[in-house]
């Protein structure tokens, strides 16, 4: 028990040190970003014939309902030259038919590119007119497989992944591509802010009015996203140790991704795995590179509002994280991989992968100690207070950083409501999540293989640093 107390204390100190550091880096990075980014620069970039063309890849599995609107709004993005490639991953509904009717497509023959591996192609469709749209209908092979097919058929030097149910702000793509224009040789991947669309007014596949969700479960996720993106990603990006560019919205250099082997088929968290592999690939080859998080572009995504869907999503994110860390365990604490190997990945392993176990063990031990009457209540209460307060500090810091960033929909969120939910979060929401995580970890460890899994679902903007501090008791 005493051993655990010491362990928990060290764990908490490490958590506070790392996250405070990252938050400070985030604040500095946003300052730097604001001093650089000018609106006229963005316009110049959109007008320049040197700005690289982008292939937008949309993996879709049974998305008939919204796919036509999604594609229409992607084609209307403010960008100089882009193409949209929809990869239907063995859809059993009318996804392909909807697109064929909406855009007047006809079947075409295309030579199959031999670059990456992907499931057999059934048919390929293209429009009659000048629209740059390609629909690849292939056998089911999972999201990674669909993305690989999209990369293979892409014709431009950069590609952007967008989930079929996500909606981009019109200037989001341009802002996310900007690091590639500023530093074309080194930039290999960029990601941007993702927000929760629940509650927003949506017309024709576009968010026309930003609002906070009504559902409590979605509100908790809004808090998590704010903290995860502004507090975490911006900070890690500042030291080139960004580990997550979420599959819902990210831009990549096609040639480098192909060289690194594309997405890992059958992976639970293919987007996370790819970014870690890109770090590994580039550092190993000794090639100077940058993986950048751009603070202000916005991609709106639908968050699950039912506990069972949220549970499934979180299970997938969590196991994807654990799996990726296991795959790349050779990078852990390896100075060869710089800040990624020494700090970012170990922090991920410790706080994200092991966090749930530490926290739950804490609850159990505290309960046992209380039953035995061996607990010092004041110390216990103070320990709890530290954990809860620190979560609030991270949220407040992230909100401040976010408010300092100019946005399309300024100040739409009610900060008091957000803060209230940041407090409420501690009363059940995160304990339940930690339980889900721990349970799936036990399951995972027992199987040690991952058998068949739900291939495709919502986006996967894994939220790091969601307060994994653990609430360890302090028995005496």
């Amino acid at each position, binding site marked *: 028990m005493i051993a655990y107390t010491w362990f928990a204390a060290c764990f908490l100190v490490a958590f506070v040190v790392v996250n405070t550091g990252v938050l400070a880096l985030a604040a500095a990075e946003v300052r730097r970003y604001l001093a650089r980014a000018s609106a006229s620069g963005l*316009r110049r970039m*959109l*007008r320049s014939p040197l700005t690289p063309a982008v292939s937008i890849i949309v993996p879709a599995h049974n998305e008939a309902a919204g796919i036509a609107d999604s594609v*229409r709004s992607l*084609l*209307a993005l*403010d960008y*100089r*030259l882009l193409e949209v490639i929809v990869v239907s991953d063995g859809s059993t509904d009318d996804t392909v038919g909807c697109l064929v009717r909406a855009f007047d497509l006809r079947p075409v023959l295309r030579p199959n590119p031999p670059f990456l591996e992907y499931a057999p192609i059934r048919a390929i469709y293209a429009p009659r*007119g*000048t*629209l*740059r749209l390609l629909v690849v209908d292939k056998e089911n092979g999972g999201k990674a497989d669909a993305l690989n097919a999209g990369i293979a058929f892409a014709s431009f030097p950069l590609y952007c992944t967008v989930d079929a149910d996500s909606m981009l702000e*019109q200037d989001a793509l341009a802002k996310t591509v900007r690091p590639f224009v500023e530093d074309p040789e080194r930039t290999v991947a960029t990601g941007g802010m993702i927000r929760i669309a629940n509650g927003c007014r949506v*017309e*024709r596949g*576009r968010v*026309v009015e930003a609002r906070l969700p009504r559902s409590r479960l979605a509100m908790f996720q809004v808090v998590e996203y704010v903290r995860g993106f502004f507090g975490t990603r911006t900070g890690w990006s500042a030291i080139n140790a960004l580990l997550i560019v979420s599959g819902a919205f990210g831009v990549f250099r096609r040639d480098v991704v192909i060289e690194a082997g594309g997405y890992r088929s059958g992976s639970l968290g293919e987007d996370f795995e790819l970014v870690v592999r890109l770090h590994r690939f580039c550092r190993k080859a000794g090639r100077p590179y940058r993986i950048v998080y751009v603070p202000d572009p916005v991609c709106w995504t639908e968050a699950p509002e039912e506990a069972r869907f949220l549970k499934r999503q979180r299970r997938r994110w969590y196991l994807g994280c654990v799996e990726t860390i296991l795959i790349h365990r050779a990078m852990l604490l390896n100075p060869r991989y710089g800040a990624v190997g020494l700090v970012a990945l170990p922090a991920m392993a410790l706080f994200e992968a092991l966090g749930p176990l530490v926290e739950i063990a804490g609850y159990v031990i505290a309960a046992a100690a209380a039953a035995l009457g061996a607990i010092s209540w004041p110390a216990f209460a103070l320990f709890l207070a530290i954990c809860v307060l620190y979560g609030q500090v991270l949220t407040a810091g992230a909100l401040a950083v976010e408010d300092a960033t100019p946005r399309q929909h300024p100040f739409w969120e009610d900060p008091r409501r957000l803060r209230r939910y940041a407090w409420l979060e501690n009363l059940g929401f995160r304990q339940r999540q930690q339980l889900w995580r721990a349970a799936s970890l036990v399951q995972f460890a027992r199987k040690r293989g991952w058998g068949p899994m739900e291939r495709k679902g919502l986006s996967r903007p894994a939220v790091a640093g969601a307060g994994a501090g653990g609430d360890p008791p302090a028995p005496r």
Partner: protein
Amino acid sequence: MKILIADDSSTVRRLVAARLSADGYQVLEAADGAEAVELARSGRPDLLVLDKVMPKMDGFEVVRALREDPRTASVPIVMLTERTSEQDVLGGLGLGVEEYMPKPFSPLELSLRVRRLLARAAP
């Protein structure tokens, strides 16, 4: 003569509107594509000046919607746009856009083209 200008930049809308009003036209303004379609249907303008990139509906979608509606199918359209890629120009002309003006533009030139188009459209 009534002209509708649709552009999400209020600066551009003002620049165009001031020039056209000075030249004796009545000007309607729309800040996004959906509003443009609505105003085009209710306000019955004689000509449209359209931006390509707008919220809610982009310029091409507006053109498509107007061309499908018999009331607005024959209104002349001038596209005023950042984009000058061949793909865009062809796409616009294919949909039945009468004129293409790339930004940066000259409001004076725009006004002259508008006058020419209206003269041609008049019976």
